[in-house]
């Protein structure tokens, strides 16, 4: 299949787009269908016999105004341009009269008519909307009293502004840097602490172990130590329900038989910082 003569030239939007060059403000249009319909209706063109070459040129000329930053909508216009050019090319191809083939414009015409109908419907909807807006339901919504800005006098003095400015702490840029520090609390310390208290007391509250410290890290490390000792079967962790107090029970050195207390550990998880 060979492109018919004249095809390549017609692809380019001519600077002077033939007779009746149209200047259109693209912002006015909701999309390529809107623009195309406008071109056709403005010029009183028979929609069933669209002079496709002329319309294509006008369409291409119009969309040249699209700014590159509006690429999103440009794509839609370009797609239509491609459709138009394709139809134009098909029109130029000789069609055997006996062949059962649709006019290349048929689908476009269907779309245009459909779009035009939808547009008319949306105008009707708009009319219905404004009719409806004239009828009010019950259901007053008392507005929040909001004093208009211009009515409240500006009472701030310069001194107050100055003071506020002095109070602003300039954030230290270094403070925002993420720093990796060594673990300041060793788990072994906590293990020792537990082992010191537990054998004589029999049981101890988790929160009691944390009492002397504020840092979260102590809580974390104590919890880890508790888990470790539970693993070693030195103690048992008990918690009645999630977020309630966690208790450590002494089981004695070596631990007397497994009682499946590992499950308790899992229940204890949320306790980690519960009391902090």
């Amino acid at each position, binding site marked *: 299949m060979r492109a018919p003569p004249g095809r390549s030239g017609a692809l380019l939007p001519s600077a002077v787009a033939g007779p009746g060059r149209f200047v259109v403000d693209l912002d006015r249009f909701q999309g390529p269908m809107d623009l195309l319909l406008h071109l056709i209706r403005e010029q009183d063109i028979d929609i069933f016999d669209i002079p496709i070459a002329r319309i294509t040129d006008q369409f291409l000329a119009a969309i040249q105004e699209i700014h590159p930053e509006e690429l999103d909508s440009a794509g839609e216009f370009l797609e239509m341009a491609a459709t138009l050019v394709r139809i134009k090319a098909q029109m130029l191809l000789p069609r055997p009269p006996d062949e059962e083939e649709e006019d290349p*414009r048929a689908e476009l015409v269907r779309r245009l008519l459909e779009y035009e109908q939808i547009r008319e419907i949306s105008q009707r909807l708009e009319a219905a909307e404004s009719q409806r807006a004239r009828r009010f339901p019950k*259901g007053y919504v008392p507005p929040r009293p909001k004093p208009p800005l211009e009515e409240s006098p500006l009472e701030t003095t310069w001194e107050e502004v100055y003071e506020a400015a002095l109070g602003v702490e300039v954030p230290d840029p270094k403070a925002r840097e993420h720093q990796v520090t060594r673990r300041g609390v060793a788990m072994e310390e906590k293990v020792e602490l537990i082992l010191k208290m537990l054998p004589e007391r029999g049981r101890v509250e988790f929160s009691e172990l944390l009492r002397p410290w504020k840092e979260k890290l102590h809580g974390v490390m104590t919890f880890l130590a508790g888990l470790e000792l539970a693993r070693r079967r030195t103690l048992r962790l008990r918690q009645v329900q999630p977020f309630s107090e966690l208790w450590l029970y002494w089981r004695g050195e070596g631990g007397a038989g497994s009682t499946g207390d590992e499950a308790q550990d899992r229940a204890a998880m949320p306790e980690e910082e519960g009391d902090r």
Partner: protein
Amino acid sequence: MRPEQIVEAVLFSSDAPLRAEEIARADESLDEDVVERAIQRLQGEYQEDERAFEVAEVAEGFQLLTRPEFASYLERFDTVPRPSRLSGPALETLAIIAYRQPIGRMEVEYIRGVSSSGVIRTLQDRGLVEVVGRAEGLGRPLLYGTTPRFLEHFGFQSLADLPRTEELSVVLRDRAPLTADQEAPVDPDQEELNLEGSEESDPQ
């Protein structure tokens, strides 16, 4: 209590349309028929008394609304809820969904020629359209339809209140066949434009 009084009390206390069967829940003595007859009598009474409000039939239900001729008085008050108006693209998209429901986003975009997912989402957020199902076929795309809130917004009693396509100035059946061999013009009795099969020839 007379049924009219009960119905009136229920309507008065509601700020959204109520269907007859919902109103009937107010009392054992009521059923749908009784409610509807009571509403007719109320409508008659209000009209006779030249009341500023009426029982409007909206969204397959009933609602007390002021009559349109009082709008100019009410609009002076900030306290009166003012319904917001829809934008052009929103109306266009809504029109397509209303007439073609259930319809997928791709078809809406094909008709409008522009991307419509944002508009559809806005309409969904405002409760005017909703997902009503999924289409067969690749990806099983979502299908959209209108909601009772849509009827309410436009003051329609039901979807049958939408402008009928044969009333519109642009009707597809008016077109002359483009060529003799083209598919038959759309049947005049067929309300919807024929979109079927159009996707195949879509250049994209």
